[in-house]
């Protein structure tokens, strides 16, 4: 990286955080087996953590030396609202997946996100969300046999019902 490179908003903080985190990892790696032997289980973790520390320090020094980028802001260029909202929603999805189940959580997730990101009407969002989730469900649950949390939807009973309608397909 050349020194002439400009520093984006938040880049210096990121560089400092990864340096501190690398230091913590080096300490944790040292605690695996210390300097017991070169073939010890902690040897590679220590070597990689030490490499991280050295490179992170170099990156931090270069980043702190570089000039801040003109006309960029953290809120607009690095963490705009759609990105923050999306990260929060993915976290919320993971939290609700077990209690609510795959179908309702996914429906809400996709419909809300389309609405937030594109500003489309509620009917459009609900239709796109429902149809795409139905397709994903058929492909992954029915064809690939990927088991997703059922939650409040009695999926097994529903699938068994459809199974009885097409007994030859079972």
């Amino acid at each position, binding site marked *: 990286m050349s020194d002439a490179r400009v520093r984006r908003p938040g880049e210096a903080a990121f560089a400092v955080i990864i340096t501190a985190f690398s230091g913590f990892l080096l300490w944790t790696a040292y605690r695996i087996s210390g300097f017991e032997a070169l073939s010890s289980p902690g040897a590679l973790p220590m070597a990689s953590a030490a490499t991280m520390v050295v490179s992170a320090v170099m990156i931090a020094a270069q980043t702190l030396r570089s000039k801040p980028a003109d006309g960029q802001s953290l809120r607009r260029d690095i963490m705009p609202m759609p990105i923050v909202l999306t990260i929060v929603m993915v976290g919320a999805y993971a939290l609700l997946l077990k209690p609510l189940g795959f179908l309702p959580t996914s429906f809400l997730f996709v419909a809300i996100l389309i609405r937030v990101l*594109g500003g489309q009407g509620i009917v459009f969002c609900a239709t796109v969300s429902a149809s795409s989730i139905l397709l994903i469900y058929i492909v992954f649950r029915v064809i690939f046999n990927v088991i997703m949390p059922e939650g409040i939807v009695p999926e097994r009973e529903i699938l068994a019902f459809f199974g009885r309608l097409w007994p030859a397909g079972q």
Partner: protein
Amino acid sequence: MQALNAFLIPILDLQLLGLVAIGTFAGIYVGAIPGLSVTMAVSILISFTFKWDVYPALSLMIGIFMGGVYGGSRTAILLNIPGAPAAIATALDGYPMAKRGEAGEAIGITTVMSFFGGFMGIIALAVAAPLVSEFALKFQPRDYMLLAVLGILLVGSLSGDSLVKGVFAGALGILIGTVGLDPLTMADRFTFQMPELRGGISFIAVMIGMFGISEALMQLHDVNKAAVKQKISRIVPSWGTVVKYLPLSLQSGSIGVIIGALPGTGGDIAALMAYDHAKRVTPNPEVPFGEGAREGLVAPETANNAAVGGAFIPMMTLGIPGDAVTAIMIGALFIHGLNPGPMLMIEKPDMFWFIVGALTMANCFMLLFGLTGIKVFVKIVEMPRSVLIPLIFLLSIVGAYAVNGSLSDVYWMLAFGVLGYFMKLYGYQLGPVILGVILSRLLDDNWRRAIISDQESLWLLLKGTVTSPLSALLLLSVLAIVLSKTKLWRRWRGQAA
């Protein structure tokens, strides 16, 4: 005879043939839609196919890989947005052709030339891989260790402007790969006394996070960007056009094979180098380069597809992935109980020939699907990102959850997705992270074998390295990469120039 039988499996078995076809078809669309990438698709796909038999799973993934490398050119031509890094050079002349109303012709040329390139790569793989793997049997543990370090450094140095950031990313990947119980001594490594960490961090969660979530988050910056509409003209190029550009295609394909076979390089570098070559060997094109020169399509498109076969050579023979996509392919082979490297070529040569057969069929399907259905395709790529991106997130979450039925994998995916997003924003390369995760076991095993056989002595290890021609060459290559990025080297080169 055994090789021929294995080669014919994906051709004669209708189920496998169908999966290669579906994969190639899906790959073309995945590669073409901005915001979706081959790496993302293959990493998500592993999570759904890991329970399958190895042949069907590989058939689908190889199809996606081959189709995806080609598919990137479609949006490069139609929208001036390369669907994949390998299609960056294609946009330079493809989009000006589309603006002149020649989008159909541009797509036709890229498809036929990608087909030629794909075959050149496959032939090179079939001829070179058995020879390389025989040679690789002479490798010592220290050679594998150096080769792994070399691969990570090359990806780090070539895929970004900063070697230091590449080194950081590679070391981070290696460290992530060591999390869990040490397979030799059962010692806890970075488990923080949490039972769920003892099995390690699912590399699929890391991959989906780094390539799926982070890319989708990046796409949110341009969520409301409107697609450019294009008219489609004649698609299949005339025989005269094909013959005219065949010599350039052969030269570019050779560049693609060689570049693709080098660890750390891939279709993107091959395409750019071939584009540069085309400019040098075509001093008087009918249309200037950058304004819609057909040579500017022929060279990169032949090269990037030739690089696919090339990239399989180090992957299959040495177990060293050339780039992020082949790193993920190695991960897929691991999941199916296969260990790529010279022993795989000896113990299971049928697997190698099966892959060659599947690549061949994927290449044929690429030609077929590439020249058809373009009008429908145009409609699909015009899908608003505000609809596409939520679906990418959903597929990523389902993919991360499906492997172990574990929510912690979803949290890891999200964490690595956010980390990957910031790393991308601030110029850190993500390829070395995945390479590090994949190669960490190989590095750990071979480092310990090497140092134990040298009686725990660094001096003996170093002595062994410098006295063995192969080890010395690998060590020199590692040092050369590091040295080439130092200020001292730049200053010396500046003076020499």
